[in-house]
């Protein structure tokens, strides 16, 4: 009732159109993503006769999850987090320690094997708790100071996992991590030895297609959750804080609790992703969670378009493809290109020349750097920026112009 009344009072046709348009673009992107997600394994397995591309996609998947989670912190609430990999590490280690033989050689002397489906939520809670513990004393800090605290946290956590080697194996990493197993009651044509089988023996057994299905489901759940959060009272509070913290506090928003929730919820997604990561690579070492991971995820969020969920997903997929697929594939392509155009002589190493493949590989850093700088210079707002914000800004600019024109006429 009250909603209808406000809509009637404020609802101009123009505003209605704007909302329709926003919904349309996102729906379109989601539609395309769903279709691609369904067709991808079929097409690539048919075309390349192998699952290499599908396992690439499973790895891209946890980066998508991480980007969605970081977007809550950076894009929605406007808190810069430079240590996001720490929460990812906490999630991954929670799973790795509780689902592997690791604890047998630790002072506990008992290996723990809990099923993935429970540990997924344990990891989630562990990461969220770490987020809250870090956030509680530090969220009073403003702007970049918070970024620096998270940076410090991100440096400490992997080092702690490295140092407590009695428990975590330190540099030797935690290996032999359990694979998820489907519970017996979800038996169907997809399990066993039937023609539609993609999960054998109810266990994933490193089958990329099974992991692909799992990560697509996880991402879908995450997207629905985050979309609902975005539209909720909490989501609006986050955006109010992002735009102007003082004004938001004056409107009665408890800024500390709201920021803490952004931190905790953002961290919980990386805990989720961490459990999945531990299961899918089956080996968790402190080296996998260094500063570079936090930066990569941040780059995905910013390049995709902060605050916009579809933009962030696209950003994560694009950056994953560039960093982990295109750039590592460059040496091979350069060699075959050189051979094809008759420059085969530059391929082998001789003297100071390390060989074309090696030389191209050494260019990786430079290429990555140029891509980052170039993309930011060309499109600082990201690939798919949040349409609401874009329109708000444009609308404000137009209104300002109109008042100026009116004043000019009046005088």
């Amino acid at each position: 009732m009250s909603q209808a009344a406000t809509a009637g009072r404020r609802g101009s046709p123009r505003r209605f159109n704007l909302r329709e348009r926003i919904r349309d673009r996102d729906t379109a992107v989601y539609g395309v993503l769903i279709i691609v997600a369904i067709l991808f394994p079929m097409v690539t397995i048919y075309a390349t006769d192998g699952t290499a591309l599908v396992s690439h996609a499973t790895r891209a998947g946890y980066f998508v999850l991480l980007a969605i989670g970081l977007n809550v912190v950076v894009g929605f609430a406007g808190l810069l987090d430079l240590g996001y990999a720490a929460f990812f590490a906490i999630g991954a280690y929670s799973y790795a320690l509780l689902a592997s033989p690791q604890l047998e050689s630790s002072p506990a002397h008992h290996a723990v094997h809990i099923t993935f489906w429970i540990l997924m939520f344990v990891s989630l809670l562990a990461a969220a708790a770490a987020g809250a513990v870090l956030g509680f004393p530090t969220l009073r800090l403003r702007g970049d100071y918070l970024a620096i605290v998270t940076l410090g946290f991100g440096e400490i956590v992997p080092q702690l996992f490295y140092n407590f080697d009695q428990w975590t194996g330190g540099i030797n990493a935690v290996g032999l991590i359990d694979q998820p197993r489907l519970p017996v009651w979800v038996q169907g044509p997809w399990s066993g030895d039937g023609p539609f089988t993609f999960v054998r023996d109810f266990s994933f057994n490193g089958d990329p297609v099974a992991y692909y299905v799992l990560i697509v489901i996880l991402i879908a759940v995450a997207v629905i959750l985050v979309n609902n959060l975005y539209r909720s009272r909490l989501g609006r509070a986050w955006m109010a804080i992002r735009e102007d913290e003082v004004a938001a506090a004056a409107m009665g928003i408890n800024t500390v609790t709201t920021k803490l929730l952004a931190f905790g919820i953002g961290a919980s997604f990386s805990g989720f992703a961490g459990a999945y990561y531990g299961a899918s690579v089956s080996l968790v070492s402190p080296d996998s969670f260094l500063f570079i991971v936090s930066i990569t995820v941040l780059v995905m969020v910013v390049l995709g378009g902060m605050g916009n969920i579809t933009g962030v997903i696209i950003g994560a997929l694009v950056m994953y493809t560039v960093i982990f697929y295109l750039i590592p594939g460059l040496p091979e392509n350069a060699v075959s290109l050189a051979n094809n155009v008759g420059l085969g002589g530059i391929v082998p190493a001789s003297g100071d020349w390390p060989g074309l493949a090696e030389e191209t590989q050494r260019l990786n850093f430079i290429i990555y750097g140029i891509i980052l700088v170039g993309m930011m210079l060309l499109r600082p707002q990201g690939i798919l920026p949040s349409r609401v914000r874009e329109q708000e800004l444009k609308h404000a600019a137009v209104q300002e112009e109109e008042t100026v024109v009116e004043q000019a006429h009046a005088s």
Partner: protein
Amino acid sequence: MVGSGASVLKRFRSSQLGGMSLPDYGFYILCATAIVLLATQAVLHPSDFAQILVFGVTQGAIYALVALGYTMVYGIIELINFAHGDVFTLGAYIGTAILGFFSLTEGSFTTINLIALLLVFPLVMLIMGGINVAIERVAYRPLRNAPRLAPLITAIGMSFLLEGIMFLWKGPATVHFPDILPQASTTVAGVFFGFKDVFVVVVAAILVTLLALFINRTRLGKAMRATAQDRDAAQLMGIDINRTIAATFFIGALLAGAGGMIWGLYYNTIYYQLGFRSGLIAFTAAVFGGIGNIPGAAIGGLVIGLTAAFSDSYIGSKWTQVVIFGILIGVLVFRPTGLLGMRVPEK
């Protein structure tokens, strides 16, 4: 240590309710605990302690030079310049390359060594200054009015780019930096002083003093201070903002280039990712001293250098990183403006 931390936290929370400035109190208690612990060591093993002190001061002097660049850039455009650590490393790389043109005698000190040093040291500083101004022009200036995270990402991109250039140039292995300083050393009361230690500290002290004079006594220094305080107001007063910011990057890189040279001369080993870790540590030093505060960065560098040295010896080197970044978090929680920082109004 843990017990005092918990009680400090409790006090800190009650301070929020009471509205008193007890977080400062917590900061002093933490500092005092650290000083008491170190003083115990100093009394028990004076010569070991003094030796670590010498090493810490030397290390800290280098961190201070790098931290100054971070703090100046942050003070003026509020950007965490991730590329700065790599500018520092690139300084060392260019230094080795230019030193390669001289017929140097390693391990002893000849006239040629001295001439080479006197020529190359300022030259590397100037080259790095030029490179940093170019970086600012390409990667940061076009984004001055863009969303705040955009220049941060280009800074990271520039960092990768510089690392990539060094990687391409010399490959992934460590690179030897010519050992051309005098090997003279002396032992005072069981404490070893090398010429190198003295050299590092003296050069760093001279550079920091020059910087302080420049900032406080010259017109351009005044323009920098004004721009850092309020960019728009400074512009209205007729200050050329772009030129001032470029000058800040130039001076920051002069110090980073000097830091790179000193690092090379002292440790004689460099590698392309050196700037990443030491850059983060230098940045911690800048925050510790109060980011944007120039004497703060110098003191922060010294404190972090000492902390690293003490933690390496007394706690174990694998904990040093945890200690340094733990201190960073502690400082920010209890005293967000750093050791010497002023309360900066939120813009």
